[in-house]
């Protein structure tokens, strides 16, 4: 049950990240995915367990303004903050 819930939360986190990045453009989403893969050997859903990776990648592409992208992802996920790991993700992403 816990495993299933974790998978669901992981998928929701991935969807939220994808939606925000696609808002900028498909190549932006592809670039972030590619950098995560190359630099951390992980995929978008893995950011649920390693939010700092996503923060670092966004910072390397967008510089100072990455905080606003992180903020948008936080807003997308805040309704699931009752989940412990999701709460950690919201609090630690980009910090």
């Amino acid at each position, binding site marked *: 049950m816990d495993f299933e819930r974790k998978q669901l939360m992981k998928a929701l986190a991935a969807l939220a990240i994808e939606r925000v990045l*696609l808002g900028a453009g498909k190549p*932006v989403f592809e670039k972030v995915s590619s950098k995560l893969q190359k630099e951390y050997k992980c*995929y978008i859903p893995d950011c649920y367990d390693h939010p700092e990776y996503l923060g670092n990648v966004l910072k*390397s592409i*967008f*510089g100072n303004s*990455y905080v606003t*992208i992180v*903020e948008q992802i936080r807003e997308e996920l805040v309704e699931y903050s009752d989940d412990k790991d999701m709460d950690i993700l919201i609090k630690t992403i980009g910090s």
Partner: protein
Amino acid sequence: MLTIRKQNELQKPLLITLIGTGLIIMTSTVLGKEVVKSVTDIMYIVITGIFVALTTLIVWRFRTTGSHGKAWLLFLGTATSWFIAETTWTIYELVYNVNPFPSIADVFYLMGYPFMFGFLIYYLKPVRRAATRKLIITAIGISATIAIPSIYMAYSFDPSVSLLENILATTYPIVDAIVFVPALIGIVLFFRGEVNFTWSLICTGIFCSTIGDLGFQFTTFTNTYYTGHPIDIILIWSYILFSFGVYDHIKIFKKDKSVEDKVKYSDDRF
């Protein structure tokens, strides 16, 4: 580190192109005004043509997806307008042997600015919340300062210059200063990011365009402008900087086939 290395890769060809175009125009000047006129006009068409081609490539890559996709489509509007303007200017000057200022070419030059402004706004849209009031006011202040000489010249113009010429020559530096506002904001917002180099080139391009247009206004009012004048070097540089900016962006967001398949695999897991 990677970003710095990549920037260095582009800095050398950019510098060579800027120096090269400057030298070609200066050398042509030695050969006479007719030669420099032809060389400069053709150079404008070639460079804006490359600018259009590169912008088409980036539009093809983004395919109007998201706000950046829309931004690049608007930038294509700018590139196309200025390419048509330069071509029209050249046809008037080299084919019909008439003074191209003022002419229909000015309509296309001016048409490029709303597209440019739209591009900058759409590109900044996803990160707009990072723009503080202080930053916006500072950017407006800097841009307004740049526009002051233009407004001053407009009030003290030579009576031999027609009112239409005065209005047009004054409008260019002012609209340059307007588009300079979001460009400056972008420089600060994307500082230390990979896209900052693209943004710096576009911002420097707008700055060159502003200086060039101020020079054009001044030389028009003093009746000293001719195609191939040193201020044309600065205006050509602006197109080169825009083109390199677009090229840098193409490089940053190029498709990575090796990773693409693995990302698809990760999506399939859900």
